[in-house]
């Protein structure tokens, strides 16, 4: 570590500090900036030549002058210290403790940027995780090592949903070693407290590592935070063999911080002012989820993305959806009807579901039932649309069955209590109970054998009479 301090700042603006004539500085180096009042700030070298070194100051460049600003180059990248003691601790965005306990000392330090996993070393995720939520387990199953974001909007209960999944997620028939890494970027104090209390109430706090950056704290720190959190997660999963669930909230704040810095650097904007590399940058984060062949641990990731003005085509949810393995989308309409969790079924998807369900994992009819529910609900929504125009009385008998199906499905299948845990068999049986509101000839995604075994059609009203 170098003791030399330079006073060669030539410009300071928008969180960037320009240094003239500091030789041989490495890209990505960590720096400490001391200002006129003696306050220390953290920074990182983002461009370097012997003439000009550009430093991104995490705490911003407010209240800096050029004459009394001293910069020390630490000659090391951003690293965090790792040991089993990180469980139960709370850190800030760059891995310093913020729980009034002493810093962690460990010989093991890792660069927060990590290295890309060799795709040939990955193992394909195929272990079904039961979350106890019918709309997730039955229709958009989560598997170990998957990255499945929650797309939400302001005022929707994404935090409650994420917390419920953390509480209830388990592999059926297995009690295993697990840990939670919670990465909060730009969240409000009350949201941070909500998660803390939830973890405390369910007795998992000892297994949680939190990385916290509140809404009123430096935005640029949010760029390092998810990387630090994932470095911790990789350590827990692949060194300590734990099953790690990473909850990151809110990725929109992360992307906004990235845009802020990109704009200051003068990067060419692509969509809505976000830099062209937003996709690659998000991928560096999301792709750190997964499993590795021959290693028992795993990283399952659940990022929360709030969609600005509920717009799913906004660059942040859009690019996220292209990288992650599906998405759970929340619906304002269902939320207004008082349905919890208000999962919007048609746009929700789990790409890894196909290999995590079926005979050896859940039940052999699972894939077909899920397909049938999707198809029937899509048709039911069309009928509901029609009914709002021509009135329910003029619908055909079958169409009225679909209308009943849609209501029952939303209230009884999607909706459940916040403390209610349904196992996968209960979920699938409930699905058949609802499909039994529809005549067998309307169900073409399931086989004849499924219908024999599970379908309980009572006939049309006319037939019953």
């Amino acid at each position, binding site marked *: 570590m170098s003791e030399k301090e330079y006073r060669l700042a030539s410009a300071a603006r928008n969180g960037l500090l320009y240094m003239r004539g500091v030789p041989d500085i490495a890209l990505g180096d960590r720096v400490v900036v001391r200002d006129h009042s003696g306050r220390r700030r953290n920074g990182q070298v983002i461009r370097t030549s012997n003439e000009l070194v550009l430093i991104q100051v995490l705490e911003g460049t407010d209240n800096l002058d050029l004459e009394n600003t001293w910069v020390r180059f630490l000659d090391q990248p951003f690293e965090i210290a790792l040991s089993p003691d990180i469980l139960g601790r709370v850190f800030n965005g760059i891995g310093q403790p913020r729980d009034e306990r002493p810093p962690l000392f460990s010989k093991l330090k890792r*660069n927060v940027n990590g*290295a890309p996993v060799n795709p040939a070393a990955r193992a394909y995720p195929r272990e079904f995780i039961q979350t106890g939520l019918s709309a997730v387990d039955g229709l958009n199953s989560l598997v170990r090592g998957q990255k499945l974001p929650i797309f939400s909007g302001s005022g929707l209960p994404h935090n409650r949903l994420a917390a419920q999944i953390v509480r209830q997620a388990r592999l059926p028939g297995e009690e295993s070693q697990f840990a939670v890494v919670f990465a909060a970027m730009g969240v409000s104090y009350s949201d941070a407290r909500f998660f803390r209390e939830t973890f405390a109430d369910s007795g998992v706090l000892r297994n949680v590592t939190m990385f916290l950056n509140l809404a009123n704290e430096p935005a640029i720190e949010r760029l390092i935070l998810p990387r630090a959190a994932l470095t911790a997660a990789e350590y827990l999963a692949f060194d300590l063999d734990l099953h790690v669930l990473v909850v990151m909230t809110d990725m929109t704040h992360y992307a906004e911080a990235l845009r802020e810095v990109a704009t200051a650097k003068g990067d*060419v904007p692509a969509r809505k002012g976000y830099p062209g590399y937003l996709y690659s940058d998000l991928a560096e984060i999301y*792709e750190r989820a997964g499993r590795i062949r021959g290693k028992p641990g795993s990283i399952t990731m659940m990022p929360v993305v709030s969609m600005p003005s509920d717009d799913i085509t906004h660059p942040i949810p*859009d690019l996220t959806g292209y990288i992650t393995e599906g998405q759970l989308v929340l619906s304002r309409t269902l939320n207004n009807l008082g349905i919890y969790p208000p999962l919007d079924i048609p746009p929700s998807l789990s790409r890894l579901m196909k290999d995590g369900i079926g005979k050896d994992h859940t039940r052999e009819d699972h894939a077909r039932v899920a397909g049938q529910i999707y198809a029937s609900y899509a*048709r039911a929504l069309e009928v509901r649309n029609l009914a709002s125009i021509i009135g329910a009385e003029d619908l055909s008998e079958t169409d009225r069955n679909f209308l009943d199906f849609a209501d029952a499905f939303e209230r009884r299948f999607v909706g459940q209590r916040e403390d209610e845990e349904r196992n996968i068999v209960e979920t699938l049986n409930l699905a058949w109970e609802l499909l039994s509101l529809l005549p067998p000839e309307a169900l*073409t995604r399931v086989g004849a054998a499924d219908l024999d075994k599970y379908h309980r059609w009572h006939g049309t009203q006319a037939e019953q009479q």
Partner: protein
Amino acid sequence: MGPRMAKVVEVNGPLVTIELADVRTGEQVRIGRLELMGEVIARHGEHALVQMYEPTESLRPGEPVEALGHPLSVELGPGLLGGIFDGVQRPLLEHAKQHGDFIPRGVHIPPLDRGKLWCFEPNPEFRIGMQIEDGAVLGTVQETPTIAHRILVPPGMGGELVELVSACDITVEAAVARVKQADGVIAELSLFHRWPVRSPRPYRSRDDAVAPLLTGQRILDTFFPLVKGGRAAVPGPFGAGKTIVQQQIARWADADIVIYVGCGERGNELVDILESFPKLTDPNTGRSLMERTLLVANTSNMPVVAREASIYVGVTLAEYYRDQGYDVVMVADSTSRWAEALREVAGRLGQMPVEEGYPAYLASRLAAFYERAGRVQTLAGGNGSITLIGAVSPPGGDFSEPVTSHTKEIVQTFWALSKELADARHYPAVDWVESFSGYVASCSGWWAEHVDPRWAEQRAAALEILAQAEELARIVNLVGPEALSPQQRWALQGVALFREGVLQQSALDPVDSYCSPQKQFALLDQMLSIYEHGLRLLEFGVPVQELLRLPLLAEAQRLKGSYSNDQLDELRSFAARVDGEFERLHSEYAQHAKAEP
């Protein structure tokens, strides 16, 4: 030009400025103590600008640079098939074996295994002293049980044959022939050679495409066909099933070689292929699918510049197998990520953006890439083809964005995926209104000869009903189904038959995942026949409600999954039952009509 030394001047993310005169754009360089790989993209006075294939963290000004004297090239020889390479052809399996689960920087492993032994069978027609041409087949190596790898005279290396050996248990580096060239120099030829990826490999002439590329997917083969040597694009918003469509093509296409380029996509998708393909069998040869497959993987978290290169690496490998006389399919998932890599580098170079930040040369680069597809007469005299299929990921699912709209102008087959269909879990979510194929005429000959002469007209009839239905569905949404005539309501039922019974196809159902051309036509024909039977009965006065109640409608929609490709007889007997059932209804109503005149 041999290696020359220089030093680093500036590091700016993936762009590095070096001080080095006399270097060409495109030349490969190794930078810094870590020996990171990069490519010169611009010259400015004594300085050269390098884009790096590896992350540049910890690199500093003043570090050494070595220029290698050649552009980005790939090694072409036996041992490629079944492998997985990164965007600059580093062998990832070998990487994992030597360096663990994460990809370290500055590691250089040759793409072709230098320890693996091969058996070389020389071309029996060649005699010492003969004049051999560029691209001629020197001999063969059995690369996998199904693929005979033809060792070619590298373009530019033809001449008088001085020596040709027959040898077993030799490595790719062993010399198998010596050729005296025009300038009198005798060159040694081994089992492999190198080729710069940005230069298309030469061929004798272009040929017309003659045969469809059969993928076993009904909506693709029957409705929007592609030919061997054609160009296609699969655009769609996220979650619409691009990757599944691409993987289904990689699985079932009746090609000799499949090259799958994962360009800026998910790591797990490549693992899925790596784990599942060895267990699947090729419906045409009965052998493991992995024996004909080669993966190029630059996942989204790997360096962006190597992503730009990966597409060219993939297509050069494709050209090499084409030159051996094979039909090659290359799927690129996704060309949008490749375009974004272009944009990222252009942005850092400060080039003027034109549309959505993309540089002005986006359209010409895309066109030049797709132009490398085609069916050709090779230098060796045979026929080979490359079919290019690119996925496009339009932001927000907006097809008017630059990459989708430029691609649409270039390709002949356009499989547009729709969010609405995917939301209803109708897969493959290929939208039959937005999609098109310019190859229908060239394919109809093949279908007429091998399957049924009525293929073209039945296909057109089905598409007409589907198109009509769009209009009807709008009316229903406005005023309800009662406003439709019986014929129109029956047409809506016809659409349901086509949607569920033909177009929708489950990649996960072992019976339905691959559909032979014969079964494709049988299903199409069956649905049309039910529809036409119904129309006749309506004219005869049978109420439409009576027809809609027929249980055989639901049964017909399940046919695809009920009977396998070998059970065409069962399909035929179902057809006979349908005829009987409609006949019965007909006579019932005929008597009815007589009883009440």
